[in-house]
């Protein structure tokens, strides 16, 4: 089935890095894009401008995915751009520490933003997708989760949870033309990882380099496309071979 006209995509955490690249890619593929941000309004506006300069449609959508204004975010996008038939749960935080020292707050904050918020936003967005008999949900997971990374038990739990959630919701809604998939980036060059890019880490990646946000975004673009209509419940690794 082809994508309904005037369909909009909402990308959470899209003011910079991987989220911004995803927003630009989806816009290039014809989606009108809601560019969500929590605090970096300037970054979100820059993403919107880049999309508009390239001939696309976008709006900046303010809101913290981990608190109660998720429905308002969806409504904002719908009223400005059209029904939200693509949701990319990208917003994420990291609060690293060895498990033995990890505070409850660090655990809770990471689970709340990286997992619970993605579930709640997906649940709320599915309603319109099911009604439209068309939808694309892409959850940005990580190679951390399926594999270990010392110091990130909270992050790994959330990301592994996201993959489990992806598979189950994919099962539930497949017959309504709604696909749910995950993309699992490896070591991607962003602000979040710039201090970690030591030679030693890069040597452990089979591709011997960091990935780019654009390489992650290309995978999301595919999963959000009409052509990926038979791909659901899967996790696409974009990791230079790290998890192979």
């Amino acid at each position, binding site marked *: 089935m082809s994508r309904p006209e005037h369909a909009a995509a909402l990308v959470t955490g899209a003011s910079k890095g991987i989220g911004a690249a995803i927003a630009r890619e989806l816009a290039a593929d014809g989606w009108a894009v809601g560019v969500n941000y929590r605090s970096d309004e300037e970054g979100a506006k820059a993403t919107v401008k880049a999309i508009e300069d390239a001939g696309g449609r976008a709006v900046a959508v303010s809101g913290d995915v981990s608190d109660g204004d998720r429905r308002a975010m969806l409504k904002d996008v719908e009223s400005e751009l059209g029904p939200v038939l693509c949701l990319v749960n990208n917003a994420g935080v990291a609060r690293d520490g060895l498990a033995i020292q990890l505070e409850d707050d660090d655990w809770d904050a990471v689970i709340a933003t990286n997992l619970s918020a993605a579930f709640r936003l997906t649940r709320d967005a599915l*309603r319109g997708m*099911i*009604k439209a008999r068309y939808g694309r949900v892409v959850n940005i997971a990580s190679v951390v989760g399926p594999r270990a990374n010392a110091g990130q038990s909270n992050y790994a739990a959330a990301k592994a949870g996201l993959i489990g959630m992806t598979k189950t919701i994919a099962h*539930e*809604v497949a*017959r*309504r033309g709604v696909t749910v998939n995950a993309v699992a980036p490896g070591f991607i060059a962003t602000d979040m990882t710039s201090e970690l890019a030591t030679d030693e880490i890069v040597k452990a990646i089979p591709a011997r380099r960091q990935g780019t946000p654009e390489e992650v975004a290309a995978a999301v673009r595919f999963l959000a496309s009409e052509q990926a209509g038979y791909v659901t419940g899967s996790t696409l690794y974009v990791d230079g071979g790290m998890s192979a």
Partner: protein
Amino acid sequence: MAAAITEENVQKTVFEALPQFGVDESQITRDATFEDLDVDSLDLAELSQIIEDEYGVALKGDDVGKIKTVGDAIDLVVSRGS
């Protein structure tokens, strides 16, 4: 805004919604079971949302699990609204 929750209105909504899930209109009666109509749990969840949108009555998973026939669903919505 929300329509009046009468048996007649709710029945009309339910009867009109079921064909969206592939149910043959000629088979829809109050006594028909959702199992016989091949209406599954996702269909019932979607029906619940249609009812919530129309009447402002939210049916939860527990409620939906108890109903067997089309008539049960209509009666449940009417009882919640009164």
